């Protein structure tokens, strides 16, 4: 695909071929979301959000991050709070609807349920967004990720209730819709522009016709 960023692609192939075992340390600037999360976990477990406890949480979080380093997560540098909120609400709605759909299948269809494995190539190139899309898909009942091809950002999904070719296309559309929403929430500027261009002026409406 010509639209994909070749620099990222090369970086990824380097990562995959790198067998030296040396990891790049993340800087504090890249790691602050992880630190904030750890501090929140600490304070929530103590059920105590007083300043003293928070400061001790900072110390514990720093020790953990130093002792158990993780490879850096590259953020895109753009976040749209409104679309994040919309994504969250939409996600809860999807979980509601699909839970009852799976329930109906379990009770009324049972042994005759058919399913399928589909491959969807995502538009994005960033690991974070692929992971986020995979997470959202797995949490929404009816689909889960079996395998990921990191180089081409292809997700292999197991979809429930697939009985015809149209069902497969419908599932593919749904995946790309989720990807659109995630990119609108946390994608980089380039990807956001590409999505805007693709979906036209009805941005934010359900569907995103092409």
């Amino acid at each position: 695909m010509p639209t994909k960023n070749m620099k990222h692609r090369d970086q990824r192939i380097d990562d995959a071929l790198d067998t030296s075992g040396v990891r790049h340390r993340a800087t504090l600037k890249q790691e602050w979301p992880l630190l904030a999360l750890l501090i929140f976990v600490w304070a929530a477990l103590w059920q105590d959000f007083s300043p003293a406890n928070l400061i001790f949480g900072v110390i514990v979080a720093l020790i953990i991050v130093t002792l158990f380093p993780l490879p850096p997560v590259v953020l895109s540098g753009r976040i749209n709070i409104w679309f994040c909120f919309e994504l969250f609400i939409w996600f809860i709605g999807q979980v509601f609807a699909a839970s009852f759909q799976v329930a109906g299948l379990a009770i009324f269809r049972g042994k005759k349920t058919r399913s399928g494995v589909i491959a969807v190539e995502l538009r994005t190139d960033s690991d974070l967004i692929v992971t986020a899309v995979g997470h959202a898909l797995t949490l929404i009942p009816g689909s889960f990720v079996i395998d990921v091809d990191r180089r081409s950002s292809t997700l292999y999904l197991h979809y429930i209730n697939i009985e015809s070719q149209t069902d497969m296309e419908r599932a593919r559309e749904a995946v790309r819709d989720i990807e659109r929403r995630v990119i609108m929430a946390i994608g980089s500027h380039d990807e956001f522009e590409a999505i805007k261009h693709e979906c036209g002026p009805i941005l934010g409406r359900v569907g995103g016709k092409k």
Partner: protein
Amino acid sequence: MDMFLDVLVAVLLITGCLMSLIAGIGLLTFPDMLTRMHAATKPQVLGFLLIFTAVAIHLRSWSVVPLLFLAWGMQLLTAPVSAHMIGRAGYRTKHAVKGSLYDDELRQVVDTVTKKQAVETPEVPAEQSKDSTS
């Protein structure tokens, strides 16, 4: 107001437990492992959300909300990972019966990789596993 909240708690609790029951029924009735995964892990996300909301409302305290949110967030973060690991292991090791699949777009890829592994250097499987666990 109290009456209303109590009824709300009751409804939330019953729906939440219903989700667990559905998971159980799904485990029994679905035909193969990959399909059962849908029943096993997913209704729980909603079930926990409902049950935790019920607990928070019933205790009428804000101090438990962060911890409940943490428990739910933990569930959100970990459930997909374990589902992916189990599903992948099942798919690759032929533990899963694939008779109920309508179509399978991954089979070809896996077959090519397995053939490559048999012929080529041992670097291929290492690279492949690194690719797929991300």
